[in-house]
């Protein structure tokens, strides 16, 4: 007869533990099979992923200049139509009336803001391009300096210089 402690160990065991890794693999396989189906809504899923990208831009690393420019471009889509939702139907109607009344002015401002946004984005694009070129050049120079160091310091620099001339 087993000791009492042995019973305790047996009773403490998790009954029928779930094979999490297997279930996860099956789920991922099911997702792939769904995507391969003839009736898979490809266009809608492309829209879903595209919408998701807008959010990814906002949580990119803070020094990711390309993401910053893409976000700026995204934000140039200024809407002249303010939301009119309200829990109170009367307030919602009032907002709608005001929106219609000032639409011509709001739209005029929105057009200019869009233009300003695109101009700012083009500046960002140009700056990103130049920065990336400079970064590439710095990396290239660093590699050359490292290679010269490996060859033995100042005398190697002279040798490198003469071979180039």
């Amino acid at each position, binding site marked *: 007869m087993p000791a009492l402690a042995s019973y305790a160990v047996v009773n403490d065991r*998790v*009954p*029928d*533990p779930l094979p999490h890794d297997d279930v996860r693999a099956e789920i991922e396989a*099911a997702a792939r099979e769904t995507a391969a189906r003839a009736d898979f809504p490809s266009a809608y899923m492309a829209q*879903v992923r595209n919408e998701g990208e807008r*959010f990814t831009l906002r949580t990119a690393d803070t020094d990711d200049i390309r993401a910053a420019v893409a976000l700026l471009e995204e934000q140039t889509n200024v809407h002249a139509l303010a939301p009119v939702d309200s829990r109170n139907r009367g307030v919602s109607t009032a907002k709608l009336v005001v929106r219609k009344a000032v639409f011509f002015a709001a739209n005029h401002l929105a057009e200019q803001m869009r233009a300003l946004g695109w101009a700012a984005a083009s500046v960002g694009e140009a700056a990103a391009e130049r920065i990336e070129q400079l970064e590439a050049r710095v990396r290239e120079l660093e590699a050359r300096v490292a290679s010269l160091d490996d060859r033995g310091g100042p005398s190697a620099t002279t040798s490198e210089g003469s071979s180039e001339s």
Partner: protein
Amino acid sequence: MTEVHQFLSTFAGRDAIGMHTIQLRALLREAGFVSDIYALDTHDDVRHDAYAAATFRNRVPADRDAWILYHFSIGSSLLDTVRALDVPLALDYHNITDARFFWRWEPRAAARMLEGRRQLAEIAPSVRFALADSPFNEQELVELGCKRTAVAPILVDFAHYDSTPDATLLARRRRAREGGGTDWLAVGRIAPNKCQHDIVLAFAAYRRIHDPRARLTLIGGQSAGEYWRSLHRLADDLGIADAVTFTDVVSHAELVACFRTADVYLCLSEHEGFNVPVLEAMHFDVPVVAYAAAAVPDTVGDGGLLLTDKDPLVVASAVERLRSDPSLRTRLVDAGRRRVEHFSIARTGPQMIESLTTLMKESS
């Protein structure tokens, strides 16, 4: 008699840290300590539970044998005030959201997070000891040079959830369920790090591919206005606005009604220090589908389905698998119950007091 007083920047009775603080005060008093709560900003619901931080020295003179346990979750001027009191200081670290998630949505909030990180890095090596909600949080403290640490999970009294649900909301949600459709639920501040947008994207995929009558309820107040508006626009643009409910902040009775009428709980967050709502879902026998990031795996353990990929199609497939496989669902619910038991206050309470008293002795 030794005194252990808790300090926190904002004290709200219904958030996880607020409830934890109240539970801990009760445990400390039971263990024989004099213990009160001091805060910089106290919400109305717990106004009678806390003293203003500025009154501490009037209530606790310098000759008393007192400790301060500072709840750390955001940058605050309160920490400077506490340090100036010259009382042995310990931390209860609940993590600080990575500012990266907020920079491009709510820069002011991001600045507070960065300030919190700066304060933590400055103080971690000099505090007497620090408690952490999870191994994930503890690792951060160790990396910052904190010499004595222990994991002590956030205190949750699950009996608190066995209360009467809001009858009107419960009836309304039950009527909606009569028409069929899976009920998805997510609870937590609507915040970029919690990635509710990934839940909306997965839900859109699920509705289109598996269950066109499915509904999604997102419970939680907003912490970044632009993110909140973008989520609404996302639901609109994907044509699912009618199926997605943003409740904002709800009462406890409404929260219970939502859990009681949910089929699946989703957590696709990328930054959590603990995450109480996944345990709440398990308590209500709602199976959990979560993304394995930050401290989420520490909390979920084997009590939920942890995904390593949160592509909308994968998340949708996970929910569909739970819907179509009752055996898996049952096993997951059972695993969730065991996980809740693991974090029951009957276990975590004594662990917390033991960790505290041991560390206090070692640090005196």
